[in-house]
């Protein structure tokens, strides 16, 4: 028998929900039954970032991953691997390129180009046990800052590292802290923005679930730097597991004296509270967020004054994003020069992206700034599902745009993405293939923004609604070529006149798709789009599968006789297309 094993069982929300059963408990039970307790320990960890294949179990020291592990596999893993030292090949992670099972995690392509700073502990420590965080030098950064540095020196360190905010805007964190620190008065606040409302983004959730202490530690460092003794985490109520883990982490940190009065006997006091969001996307915007924390409607206000001057309770406040915070303890421990040596000229360090859509390795990746989209999608992401043709990738959510094939080799950082009409945003990357309709996608985003518009300013409230109506008209084949000009005009006007970032960036999905996929808009405008599905009679074998899945029951025919779609009723949902075993359905 091998010396001593550790089983890391993923306990992120993603893996947790796939199988309601508790894998960690299952392992413990089987291990106890087999009396192997002294040879193996079971640890619950945060997300490994390849959630598409969860639940995941990692075996140390063998450095090997089992994927899609079910309750019924536990017995075999314990018996074969732990007891007899044999790898259970059928559960191994498979490389999407070579289709070969991978025995060593380090050899996996998905990890090769990655560089983990913000996610450094996710998947490696038990987020509900502070001693594991301490074991990986947790709270050492806070201790060293309190012992050896003045607040001004901390600000200087952050400035030197050139860390920029990961919440979307990319504002230099050191400068933000400096402004806040310089304000008069001694009532100041640190706020962690964990509202993560962009559809398709889940990196902040993963950090909070996988490594909550790094955020708490960084908030305390921020408090020391700007002169605040109270911090708040504004987290969306859609993230119950993250909230639960944060509460546990705060309690443990208080117990150990890392939060509360007189931290590390330095005379510095700092504590943190949680505030919940109630389902309004605009509350991710910092001024709206602050109003929401004050129990008001979450409407943004004009800047200046910036929160660093007049924020929560009208006091100087530094609002920073979860991922921004997660970088900070690592910067303190390794030095500003180390951090500034990673990345591109103007964007330092790494960025976490959430890969979703039609890609093989769905999940989180963290790469140095300046990595190209091609590397992210093909080398790390494992390429397109079913080898379909890549069409575009949507980045930056409802404020961003699409990036087509010709820009796949752009090294990504804040500036380069803006230049090609998209933006970093929070880091959601949604990969689209040839089957996806770009105009429908733009309509989807506009539907989202017009719904989430807080209604305070006219360009956003009415303008986005009108844009949505035009897109709706176009996609129903009721539009006209003039609509394209109106749409573009409207988009530019809203961009220039809206009050907050939501409205100012709401037209981006339309503008960028119009730039790269104008022909698809034109096809709709000139009504050249065939907008229903139809059956190729020669190919149809009459299996009835399509008729059974059609939600509007517009397919008729009897067994073994070619079927027909009533195109006046077809809603173009595509269900029949997916169901057909012989490719006899023609797409619009």
């Amino acid at each position, binding site marked *: 028998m091998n010396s001593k094993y550790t089983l890391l069982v993923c306990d992120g929300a993603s893996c947790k929900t796939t199988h309601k059963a508790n894998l960690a408990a299952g392992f413990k039970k089987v291990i106890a039954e087999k009396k192997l307790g002294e040879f193996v320990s079971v640890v619950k960890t945060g997300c490994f970032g390849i959630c*598409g294949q969860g639940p995941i179990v990692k075996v140390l020291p063998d450095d090997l991953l089992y994927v899609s592990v079910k309750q019924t596999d536990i017995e075999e893993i314990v018996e074969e691997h732990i007891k007899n030292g044999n790898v259970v090949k059928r559960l191994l992670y498979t490389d999407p390129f070579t289709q070969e099972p991978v025995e060593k995690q380090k050899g996996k392509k998905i990890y090769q180009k990655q560089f983990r700073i913000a996610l450094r502990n996710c998947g490696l420590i038990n987020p509900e046990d502070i001693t594991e965080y301490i074991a990986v030098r947790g709270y050492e950064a806070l201790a060293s800052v309190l012992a050896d540095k003045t607040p001004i020196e901390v600000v200087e360190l952050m400035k030197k590292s050139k860390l920029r905010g990961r919440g979307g805007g990319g504002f230099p964190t050191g400068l933000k802290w400096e402004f806040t620190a310089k304000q008069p008065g001694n009532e100041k606040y640190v706020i962690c923005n964990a509202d993560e409302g962009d*559809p398709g983004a889940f990196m902040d959730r993963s950090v909070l679930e996988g490594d909550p202490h790094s955020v708490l530690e960084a908030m305390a460092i921020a408090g020391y730097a700007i002169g605040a003794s109270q911090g708040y985490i504004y987290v969306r109520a859609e993230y119950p597991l993250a909230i639960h883990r944060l509460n546990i982490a705060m309690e443990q940190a208080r117990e150990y004296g890392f939060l509360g009065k007189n931290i590390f006997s330095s005379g510095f006091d700092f504590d943190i509270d949680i505030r919940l969001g*109630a389902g309004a996307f605009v509350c991710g915007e910092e001024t709206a967020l602050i109003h929401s924390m004050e129990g008001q409607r979450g*409407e943004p206000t004009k800047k200046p004054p910036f929160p660093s001057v007049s924020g929560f309770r009208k006091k100087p406040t530094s609002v920073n994003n979860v991922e921004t915070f997660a970088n900070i303890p690592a910067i303190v421990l390794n030095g500003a020069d180390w951090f500034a040596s990673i990345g591109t000229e103007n964007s330092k360090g790494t960025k976490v992206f959430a890969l979703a859509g039609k890609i093989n390795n769905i999940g989180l990746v963290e790469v140095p700034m300046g990595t190209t989209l091609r590397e992210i999608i093909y080398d790390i992401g494992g390429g397109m599902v079913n080898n379909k043709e890549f069409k575009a990738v949507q980045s930056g959510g409802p404020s961003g745009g699409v990036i087509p094939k010709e820009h796949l080799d752009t090294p990504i950082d804040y500036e380069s993405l803006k230049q090609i009409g998209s933006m970093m945003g929070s880091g*959601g990357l949604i990969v689209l293939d040839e089957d996806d309709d770009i105009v429908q996608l733009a309509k989807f985003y506009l539907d*989202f923004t017009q719904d989430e518009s807080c209604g305070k300013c006219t360009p956003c409230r009415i303008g986005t609604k009108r844009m949505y109506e035009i897109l709706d008209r176009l996609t129903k084949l009721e539009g006209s070529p003039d609509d394209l000009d109106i749409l573009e005009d409207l988009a530019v006007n809203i961009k220039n006149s809206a009050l907050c970032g939501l409205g100012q960036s709401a037209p981006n999905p339309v503008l960028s798709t119009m730039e790269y996929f104008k022909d698809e808009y034109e096809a709709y405008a000139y009504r050249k789009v065939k907008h229903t599905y139809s059956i190729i009679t020669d190919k149809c074998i009459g299996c009835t599968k399509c008729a059974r899945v059609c939600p509007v029951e517009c397919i008729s025919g009897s067994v073994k006789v070619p079927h027909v779609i009533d195109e006046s009723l077809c809603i173009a949902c595509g269900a029949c297309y997916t169901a057909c075993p012989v490719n006899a359905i023609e797409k619009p």
Partner: protein
Amino acid sequence: MLLDMILNKYPAQEDSLIEILLEFQDAKSSHFISEAEVKQIASYLQISEAKVCSVISFYTFFRTEQKGQHIIQVCRGVPCHVTADINIVKIIEKELGIKVDETTENKKFTLEYTSCLGLCDKAPVMRIDDKIYTNLTENKIKAILAEYRVYN
């Protein structure tokens, strides 16, 4: 009473309004906030009723009409939309005989949309009360609903 109990946990400051509303609505079985309750909350926090109403109307989480015992929320995020090759909402609408934002006659289910739940890697996703269901297929949805019909 439920509301009294919840109010007493929070300081009588305007700051607490959203937290109170969230906790109360979640705990109450019909999942909505009535006019009488608005009054009580306003008087506890010493703010106007109009203020409470304006906050309730702003946030999508808050409801002012009686809802079903179970609230089904289907994710409307883009990843769920592009990944799903079935129409989740249509399937549920057909199963329950209601449209989005409606409640079944027996007050058992309400169907709603939700914004992204951050589980896009397991798309398509829906939530019933505080349980999350991922990687949905038509059969899975039917089985889940059947379970709720029988056991809950």
